[in-house]
């Protein structure tokens, strides 16, 4: 897997107001079948995608937030979430859905997928990629 590429999916938009969050997730799901290194970045309004307690019944629009929690089973385990974006929106990590994965290299211990990073750390994550897909 030494020639695997590093893919970063950048999520900067809120869910439901537009379809980009949902269709980005559909790419991540398909992409998980390829043997590549995958990370997700949530910054700006993208952090809203991970908010707890989403309930779309009143809109008649499909609620896709649970899918994020299933991504660990597809080997997608790195959700970089920018602290400055959370702060500006009055959110803390406690306002986000708990998202975990089972670490097969550590006796399938359950570990958090969400990694809160500073803007500067996010910038470094972004530069450490082969392919940056933003939607």
């Amino acid at each position, binding site marked *: 897997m030494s020639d695997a590429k590093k893919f970063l999916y950048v999520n900067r938009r809120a869910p439901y107001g537009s379809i980009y969050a949902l269709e980005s997730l559909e790419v991540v799901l398909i992409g998980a079948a390829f043997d590549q290194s995958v990370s997700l970045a949530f910054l700006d309004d993208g952090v809203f995608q991970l908010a707890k307690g989403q309930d779309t019944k009143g809109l*008649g629009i499909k609620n896709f937030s649970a899918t994020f929690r299933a991504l660990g089973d597809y080997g997608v385990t790195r959700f970089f979430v920018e602290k400055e974006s959370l702060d500006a929106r009055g959110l803390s990590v406690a306002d986000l859905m708990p998202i975990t994965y089972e670490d097969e290299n550590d006796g399938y211990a359950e570990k958090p997928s969400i990694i809160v990073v500073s803007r500067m750390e996010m910038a470094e994550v972004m530069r450490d990629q082969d392919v940056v897909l933003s939607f």
Partner: protein
Amino acid sequence: MKFSILVSEGPYTHQASDSAYQFTKAALEKGHEIFRVFFYHDGVNNGTRLTVPPQDDRNVQRNWSELAEAHKLDLVVCIAAAQRRGILDEGEARRHGKGEGAANIAPGFRISGLGQLIEAGIEADRLVVFGD
């Protein structure tokens, strides 16, 4: 009261058409009259009969078509915007040589000119715009 509605974005990509639909439904349930729903810009894409949305999501075009049928709504797709985006009725498809069966306008929608939007603004007590 008499309302007109302007829908300026296509289905799914933006929430505009969903919001307009819920608003229109609520207005009808309250006994208001809907003079016209006008589809402009990418809004014309709400009027294609060719969408096949996922089973577990709403069908935006069918919602509109069914609401139109139930309440005799006038759903008008702007002809100029529709030509730019590839929404045609049978007359348009024939006129532009797009071939037999190519018309993709959905049931309950009709194609007409921008004057219908101005008229919608004149005739209604309130015009509400839903867009991006």
